[in-house]
């Protein structure tokens, strides 16, 4: 058991035919902190987190969660260990109410305790600011609200590790500000792995940053270290931000 790190990988690799989307990734995720995973389009970020939560089978390598090798566990079993996941392309139950969407997320842990489930639903919908829409059908929400709903579904699982794949994509500026506040409120309580293109969000939330490029880790460290890293400047930051 690793006291410092909640999750780590050794030599994690994904090949699609001849193309390697991820090559030999050794990665550690410190407990209770927010880590941003950044990198240009096609760098392999979604593939990497997909292998962590079991949605994408790895070609080779190991994933350790809480010190335990979880290679053999199916996606739903990994989620049950306390890993919550939001999709890059919003994925909610479009035909069901917001309440039911979140209740489904909460119920896996809370089971038949209806009162506890309802309390959880009310709590997390309030946290993402969707309380008034509880009874609406999820498919009727705007895109940004659907993203917030999916975040609420993640929160409702009380995850030990919360993986978010580009959660702020499609959010309005005010919603992005709320999102930053939400993530910072979770820091300490939950470990967060955040794939993010918006450098403002990264700088406001992340304690650590890992940069992926061409399926390999280019750099990892604190925001200051990453900012000072020349390789990163050249490959990525220099072209997308001047923060």
């Amino acid at each position: 058991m690793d006291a410092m790190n909640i999750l780590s990988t050794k030599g994690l690799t994904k090949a699609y035919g001849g193309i390697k989307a991820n090559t030999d990734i050794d990665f550690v995720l410190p407990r209770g902190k927010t880590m941003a995973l950044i990198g240009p389009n096609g760098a392999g970020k979604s593939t990497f987190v997909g292998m962590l939560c079991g949605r994408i089978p790895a070609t080779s390598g190991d994933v350790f969660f809480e010190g335990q090798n979880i290679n053999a566990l199916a996606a739903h079993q990994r989620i049950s260990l306390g890993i919550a996941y939001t999709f890059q392309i919003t994925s909610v139950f479009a035909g069901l109410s917001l309440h039911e969407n979140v209740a489904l997320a909460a119920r896996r842990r809370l089971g038949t305790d209806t009162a506890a489930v309802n309390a959880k639903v009310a709590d997390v919908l309030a946290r993402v600011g969707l309380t008034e829409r509880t009874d609406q059908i999820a498919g009727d929400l705007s895109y940004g609200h659907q993203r917030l709903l999916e975040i609420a579904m993640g929160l409702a699982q009380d995850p030990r590790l919360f993986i978010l794949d580009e959660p702020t994509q499609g959010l309005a500026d005010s919603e992005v500000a709320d999102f930053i506040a939400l993530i910072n409120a979770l820091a300490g309580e939950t470990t967060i792995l955040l794939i993010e293109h918006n450098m403002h969000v990264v700088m406001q939330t992340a304690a650590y940053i890992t940069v992926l490029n061409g399926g390999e880790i280019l750099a990892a460290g604190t925001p200051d270290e990453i900012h000072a890293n020349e390789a990163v400047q050249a490959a990525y930051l220099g072209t997308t931000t001047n923060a």
Partner: protein
Amino acid sequence: MTDTQRSQGLHLGVIALLAAAFFILPTYHVGNLSRIMVLAIYAIGYNFLFGYTGLLSLGHALFFAAGMYGLGLSMELFDLSAAPALIVGLASALVVSAVIGFLALRTSGVSFMIVTLMFAQAGYLTILYFGSYTRGDEGFVIPQADRAMFGFDLSNDTTRYFAALLLFSICFLAVARLVQSPFGRTLIAIRENEERARMLGYNTVSHKLKAVIISGTISGLAGAAYALLFGYAGATFATVQYSIFPLLWVLLGGAGTTIGPLIGVIFMFYLIDLSSSITSAYMLIAGVVLVLLTLFAPQGLAGELRKRVFKWMP
């Protein structure tokens, strides 16, 4: 009134209405209703898988036939009395649906439809192959004297009606309860977005397998009840046609609604009954009405009702 109370009221109301129908309706319709209620059990079983779990099977006749022959053959060949034979019927449907579910759930979508269709066809051919026991298409009659349970003569119109009502009510209420339970809601989640359900930590494969088994066993109960109450088992009930019927009933009545299956069976039964009294081309009339309904009430009768009027309907 809460939504739960409303839906309980609706379900008990439907059962009360069916009970009252026995005393109000002329004999002809009472006879029809006995048959309709048994077929509605079949539709309820089908709806559990199709309407609530989102799996479209084209092979449910196999489960219906498993129940029918499980009961029929154990009475015919092994001289079992009705009650244990009913258990054998249920057990056969349970085993058959577990095996088919285990195999067919390796596929999804169109492949699932084809695989279930093939299995059902294989089942039908098996019944024909063992024609010396099953008497194939011709089928066999279950003697009136054997059709009794707990001292009730099930070939008698009154007992038959209430036996059908009892079985229907049990399935109707049990499924209504089940689809509102956390298990049922997870099945609905799988229907809506399986990948999301899986990534919320639900074992969707085992949920779907359970759904196939429950659906198949209810369908088998319908088959066994049909043989017992109407005294006949035959291979026609294992044909593709009997796999398509429950799909049509459920589509017409309203997939994923608790009362849809009953409404669908009543509607289709009387549609064919009425149009065949008008013309010999009754299937044409039935076909046109079906097309119109699909165009103007794509969610089925109960589905449209729920969408427009009774949003609380389960």
